[in-house]
């Protein structure tokens, strides 16, 4: 058993689209240097759907002055007070289902995916960080995302197999 990719035509999504947008992620904070910090950019796919997805840092990142490193070996490294070398951060996922979409559904938030040239998504469901049933119109979850994660895709499948699933993805700028 290995990577499970699936393919969904984006065009089929459009049938589920209404108005509105999903521009709910935090805007990039300004920084003094060229290195943006913990930015969650706007979703690449901003399908105009009433159902809204957002993914934001649970603890907004602070901009810091970039420090050049000069240590020649690890014994010369001095760790800033209180820094525990964590390699993950918390993000908050919020989903608000539209009235039309407010029916039994299943959400997967996964890190290994591709958006193909035809707009469809190829998702490895073995790469998910979160899998959950959705039975309410409002959903919120805090998820732990490791720093190597390059992006996340939310796939919302309805238990009614005739209803087209919804997808939204976010790319991260790791630095």
């Amino acid at each position, binding site marked *: 058993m290995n990577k499970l990719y699936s393919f969904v035509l984006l065009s089929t999504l459009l049938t589920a689209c209404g108005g509105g947008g999903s521009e709910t992620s935090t805007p990039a904070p300004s920084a003094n240097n060229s290195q943006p910090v913990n930015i969650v950019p706007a979703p690449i796919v901003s399908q105009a759907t009433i159902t809204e997805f957002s993914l934001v840092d649970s603890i907004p990142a602070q901009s810091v002055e970039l420090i050049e490193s000069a240590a020649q070996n690890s014994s010369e490294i001095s760790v800033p007070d209180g820094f*525990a070398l964590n*390699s993950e951060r918390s993000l908050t996922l919020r989903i608000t289902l539209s009235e039309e979409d407010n029916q039994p559904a299943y959400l997967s938030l996964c890190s290994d995916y591709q958006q193909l040239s035809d707009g469809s998504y190829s998702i490895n469901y073995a790469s998910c960080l979160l899998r959950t049933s959705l039975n309410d119109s409002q959903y919120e979850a805090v998820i732990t995302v490791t720093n190597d994660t390059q992006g996340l895709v939310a796939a919302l499948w309805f*238990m009614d197999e005739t209803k087209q699933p919804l997808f939204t993805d976010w790319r991260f700028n790791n630095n």
Partner: protein
Amino acid sequence: MQKNNTYVEADNRASLNTDTLAESMIIYGHGHLRRLARQLNPLILIALLSSAPSAQASIQPLLDSDLNNQSLYASGYITMGARTKVGGNVQSATAITLAENASVGGNVQAGTATTLGADASVEGYIQAGTTVTLGAAAIIDGSIQAGTTATIGASAKINGELVAGTTVTIDATVEVGGDVLAGTTVTVGAGSIFRGDVDAGTTTTIGAGVQIDGILSANSLQLPPPPPLVTNQEVLITTLQTSLKSLGTGTELVSTTFGINDETLEAGIYSTTDYLTIAGGRTLILDGKGVDGTWVFNIANYLSFAIDAKVILKDVTDNSSIIWNVLGDKTGAAGYAQLGAGAEARGYIFAKGFVQTGANAVISGLGNDCGGAFSATNFIEFGADSVIGQQGCTNGVAAALSQAIEGHPFAACPTDAFLIQDTSATLFGVQLATGQYQQLSNTMGTSNKLNAMGFNFHDQYLYAWSNEFAQPVRINNAYKVTPLATSGLPDVSFYVGDIAIDSNVYYVYRPGADYGLYAISLDSAAANYLLADRIIDGRNLNLAIFDMAFHPFNGFAYSVDNKGNLFRIDVTNGNATLLNNIGESGTFGAIYFDVDENLYISRNNDGKIFRIDTKQANSQADLFAYGPSSSNNDGARCALAPVIATDAASIDFGDAPASYGSLANDNGARHSTENNAIFMGSGVDAEFDSFQFPLSDDETDGNDDEDGVAFVTGIEVGNGAVLQLVASSSAFVNAWIDFDGNGVFGDDEKILDARSVVQGNNIISYDVPEWAEANSTWARFRISSTAELGPTGGVSDGEVEDYQIDISEPNVSIRYYPSASGWATIAFEDNWPAIGDYDFNDLVMNYRISEYRQNGQIIRVKLEGQIAAIGASYHNGFAFHLPGITRDTINENAIRYTINDVRQNASPLESGRDKAIAIITTDMWDYVSAGENCKYHRSEAGCGSKIQMRFSMTLPMHDGIPEQQMPEFPYDPFLFATEGFEHGYAFGLPPGRAYEIHLPNKAPTEAFRSDFFGRGQDSSEPENERYFVNENGMPWAINVGAEWQYPLEYMDVIYAYPQFHSFIANQGAVNADWYIVENANIKNVFSD
């Protein structure tokens, strides 16, 4: 005396037809039945069929001509250097010349003159259109017939007649065994001896001391007829060459590169668009694999073996043939063949132009065959001391060609079964393991049914009963029948038969008082060869059976009648023993055995193949595969072969654990991949047998083909679920989930039953029953053109994909760290409280955490992991601490813990603690070993090994933990010292469980001895929640979110991951993913 030659009777050729040639050439091109089945490309076949008539048309006259027994023929002259030996017959449309001491083992026929040097010899006869000239002391075993003059050197010896159209001139001391007959004069030197008559058309001149045993006569009218003229065979050879070319290009050998180095070729058709050269001293190995085969080389320009270039035969049978067809049809090409000095070729050379060798060259045939050379338009010249055919060899290119045309026995004990069907016999090859079948021939040389087929282990031919010929026929591996005139049989057709293993006897059976069981010897050396002997009449042996098969070892024949009764038949006396009923009924028209004593029976009406284990008492029929159905069916196979071939993988297997049926021996789910276009996802690959769990079809063979099904929703007890399945074409899918986790796919666990799917994406919903167990389990998906499939058994197309899946409670939310299938890594320096070398590989653990929430409470936690490395010699344990969670929150009795898939009986919850601490193991070294010549486990260069320890632990909660109380990922994984092992200078006694190393600023557990803080370089300040760091704040453990490629032994992490410092200095604001392999200095990190 004319030397006897081996002629191939022309009337044997009469049955050849277009298809014979095409098929036989394909067969010998590949030389192997199973491969034939796979390689019968319709396009190639069409091409061959269209070309075959010309091949047939050209070979037929060749076989009728006097070329068919020649070893050498040239339309130009033939000369042989001194001491050159030719084993077979030699023919030239012009002159033939043998230098001194040269010899010909066969006959010599020249269109014009024949000239032998001193001491040259011919074992057969000499016929020359004009003169015959023998040097001194030449020896002719046969006769001489010259069109004009015969001139015999001194001391020559002729054992047969000497006939000349004009004069005979004989030097001194010549001996002639037969009559001497001249059209004009006879002149004899002194001291010659004549055993017969001497007769001259005009005058005789006899020297002194001549002895004539017969009558000396002159002015005779006994002018002998002229010798038969040698026909110029250019047209015939050219046509043959064209026909050989039309067999196809086969494998193209590139002129500029082939033969520069040593080469090996298996039997087949090969071609070049230019020349074919074997470089000096290089070898071309022809690997026959012990099976009769044919090599045909179609060469557009010239053939050249450089000095000492050699053809070497490896496992080439005597009945194989090798043909070098030098066409010279490339523009401007002469089409010659040249062998340098010392070069050695095998088989026959057909050249448009000349054939020429240096000294010490060799051309020889296979086995007792002479081999040889034919030039369509030009001369043949052999250098001194060359050898063309061994002495006493059997002449004739016809044998080599006819072997290619006639067909051979089958490859030794083929794995595939043979199935014969239809009223005009059609032969199929059947892969019993999957039921996959392919038509081998429907032009077998008979217009009616074949039946009662058996494979003869003794001569590797198939035999069957022919309705058309009303007698048995033999079937060669060109699938052509040869009728066998058999006496002693009633005038009726037989449809039950097989050939014994322990004797070369064909048994046929038909019920009825006038018929019965007959034994027919197939041993051509036996006195009763093809004499049928009735063992028992068909009233005393009265069975409703339709085929039978011989057991591989015990000598009995077995069959199943139409009611499913399994019989064992003693063919020596006709006694049949009813063993048991196998639980299936019907007309079982094709019955086979395998070497493991399994009996396979194929039911005519639905093609299902059942397996019966004859080693077991009361063995029941096990549905084994889905094969072809037919109203008329008979099967045969070599009972001594295993069912799964060992030469090439052609079956896709599942990889679920043994209880689900994955291995061939367990009748595992199997799909033939031959000519298969039905699969899920991106493709399907073949295995020899299942890479059964914990192996994996994808990971073990490195080809990720298990990719067709996505579980796009969770699988929750009592809820609906949706999956997505990608199909390569429209087909049927049958699928199962082991909902109750009992290790088998039950009938009520079939989620898709003959579900029809379309090409591309299929969204499919299914229900998870209320009785499903929330646990890890397996699913199996089978796609095929066959609608209804069970979870095991073989089928002729499609694919099986097995998935390990998780069933959860209803409405459960699962959070994974770092993801559902990814690894995080925790890496330790275990010198704490002393500062170590910062290679962070003293203990490296990969792990992931799955957290199951229901109604806002954590109901279960799953911890999985593996030991990635131990790069130090201290003995340590590893555990997960769940801060803030009390031990009694966990339902200890329901914990499931496995190490390397072995269930651990002892509870992993550390006893005597207030908080929940899950001990993975107390000494990691118990589970791993250092590599050969390695000090540690997977931390030194060149010390890679497979992962030796994997674990999986499920911790269910009694009542659930409110979300707010649950520690954050990754909880608190930590290292502790193994009891009884020392742990450095800071501790006088082995510190044991009281010693812990945690991630920075993670508090120790209650087992830790807090007075260890502050020793060595430790700079923990518990009062400030500062733990396990030195005065610089550097930790003894780091955690990263990926499967980390940790530093090599003694390699400071900063040299392996140059961004490490910048990441720390900027508190993670930059270089947050410093640990990914793209950011590594790759030569400083460990890799397998």
